[in-house]
């Protein structure tokens, strides 16, 4: 087990495009850390630098208390699961799992024991003598996991391991990976572009954009306390509604804070009511539905009002599309952002935002 530290790491390719820029990152020993961000954000490059496939242009990478900048991948005590599995196609499942053990000259009997123990864990015992191309996607994924696990590495790296699987299998593998992490207790670094994967599996999420860390925190902290509009809009489905502040400035009873240019609220915090219903929240805007997605347990609306267009998620029975509605926004659930998209928090004492306030909702008494 080992922690990983990046100190001022940058990666610049020949075309002088900065893929990763002065990144400082600490990944805790034994944590399940997910690097997430849109494509091209530098998450895979970061991962490949940790694994040793790419050399950082500047900065230091530490695994445990060893500086690994000049260490070849094989000496970093890392296992990796690749997006397309990268199984050796000419070897059987056993051959694939055994390969790294043969390389370090572990005796045959011991090898056999280790392989059999690990395939038991991933449930592949009956496929030991098959070749990868005769296995399904999910089984190949398990072989890749077994191959990575058998080495008992300090750090486990997973590069979008679930993106080639179908939705149902992905859900299943997510649970299995969480259990696996619990059992092994090894440091997991997991790269994905899917925020749902990040939210559901991570102890800690690192959100990247354009080679920079936007925020690093536990899933629920990211959700409740986004540091900027990028994080606010990246986490949660649908994304947080971020709108110009001008429209509601007058409706809010606060002293003029010129810093604030945008505000946001989560789709599940806004509430749609019939326009004849009594006023329950401070902020209320007549709205009409543009589209409606009924998902069974919940309904997602795209609505329009004087603030612009917003997504609203509701667990109440769906409204008809032509209903005469009003959007109510609880003031406590509003986030404020400045011109650069940075969250305006403590400066604005009029609206202290704490986690404990959640349960109270926005009911005006």
């Amino acid at each position, binding site marked *: 087990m080992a922690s990983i530290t990046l100190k001022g790491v940058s990666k610049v390719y020949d075309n002088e495009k900065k893929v990763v820029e002065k990144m400082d990152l600490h990944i805790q020993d034994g944590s399940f850390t997910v690097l997430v961000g849109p494509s091209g954000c530098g998450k895979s490059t970061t991962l490949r630098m940790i*694994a*040793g*496939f790419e050399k950082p242009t500047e900065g230091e990478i530490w695994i445990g208390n060893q500086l690994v900048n000049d260490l*070849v*991948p*094989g*000496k970093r005590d*890392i*296992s*990796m699961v*690749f997006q*397309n599995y*990268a*199984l*050796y*196609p*000419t*070897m059987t499942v056993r051959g694939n799992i055994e*390969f*790294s053990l043969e*390389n*370090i000259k572990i005796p045959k009997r011991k090898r056999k024991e280790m392989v059999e123990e690990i395939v038991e864990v991933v449930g592949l015992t009956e496929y030991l003598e098959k*070749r*990868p*191309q005769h296995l399904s996607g999910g089984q190949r994924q398990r072989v890749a996991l077994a*191959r990575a696990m058998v*080495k008992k590495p300090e750090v486990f790296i997973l590069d979008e391991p679930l993106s080639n699987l179908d939705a149902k299998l992905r859900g299943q593998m997510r649970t299995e990976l969480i259990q696996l992490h619990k059992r092994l207790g090894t440091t997991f670094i997991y790269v994905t572009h899917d925020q749902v994967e990040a939210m559901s599996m991570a102890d800690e999420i690192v959100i990247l954009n354009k080679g920079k860390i936007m925020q690093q925190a536990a899933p629920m902290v990211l959700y409740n306390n986004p540091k900027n509009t990028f994080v606010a809009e990246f986490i949660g489905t649908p994304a947080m509604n971020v709108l110009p502040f001008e429209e509601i400035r007058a409706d809010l009873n606060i002293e003029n804070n010129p810093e604030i240019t945008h505000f946001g609220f989560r789709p599940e915090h806004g509430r749609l009511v019939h326009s004849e219903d009594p006023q329950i929240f401070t902020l209320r805007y007549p709205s009409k539905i543009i589209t409606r997605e009924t998902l069974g347990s919940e309904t997602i609306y795209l609505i329009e009002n004087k603030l612009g267009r917003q997504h609203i998620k509701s667990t109440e029975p769906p409204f008809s599309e032509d209903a005469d509605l009003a959007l109510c926004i609880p003031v406590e659930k509003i986030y404020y952002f400045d011109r650069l998209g940075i969250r305006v928090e403590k400066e604005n004492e009029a609206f202290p935002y704490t986690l404990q306030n959640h349960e109270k909702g926005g009911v005006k008494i």
Partner: protein
Amino acid sequence: MSQDLLSHLPDNQPVAVTTRRSVSRDFLRPYIMIAPALIVFLLFFLFPIGYMIYLSFHEWNFISPEKTYVGLKNFKRLVADPLFLEVIRNSLVYTFLSVFLTITISLALSLWLNKKGWIYSFIQGAVFSPHIISLVSVSMLWMWMMDADYGLLNWFVEKLGFEKVPWLTDPKFALISLVIVSVWKSVGYYTLIFIAGLQSIPKNLYEAASLDKTPKWRVLTKITLPMLSPTLFFLTIIGLINSIQVFETINIMTGGGPVNSTKTLVYYIYENGFVFFKLGNASAAGVILLIILTILTLIYFKVLSKKVHYQ
């Protein structure tokens, strides 16, 4: 029940009514389309093969109107002829030697040249260039280089302090010399195909191997070569098929000599047919060549159909 399910379909599907004329036209059209290719194929491939098989059972001198049927006599004579056996031996030695050397050298070259950088591209281009030169020019060039007295090779050999080598004039060296020419000519092309094969191996296999602490030679034997085996096999068969048909270099550089030491199957067929006008004999040897080539091709297709398509 099934009727109910199908009830939405119309009861009487209108059947296309076609006239006799249009049927025959539709029937003929594809044949008319492929006729040019078919005629060329029949005229220049199938007919000569058939005619050769026919001639192999006859004796004919190219001129007389009479072709005497002799049954298997031509084949019996061939098998009994020590010269023909030597020809077969020469062909096999030449074929296996040149294929083995070409494959080995170009594989080594491709492993070395499969890198980025202008120097590697340049060497790759340089090695490839013999491939685009006509074989006749290549033969003339090498004849000069291998000249025992004035040749470039012997100049080097002498400079290095050895005795002159009678490249093309000694039965011990002549066949080897021809193998050298063949290897020189085809190594670049093979290298190119090998490099293409190497580049189609997924990079992350090597990344996985590097995380698995794989020593270099094991990467080569356990990953690169197995992944390259389809290419290796393809080139081996193509090489065998090409080398067994060697003719130009022999015709120009040695004429089958000295003392028949470079007489190979195709040259033997040519000599019997168009120098000695023993068409029956030549055709029988041609049939034997055809059988060898057919076997090689069948092996190729057999293994090709079994070839595993990885991932």
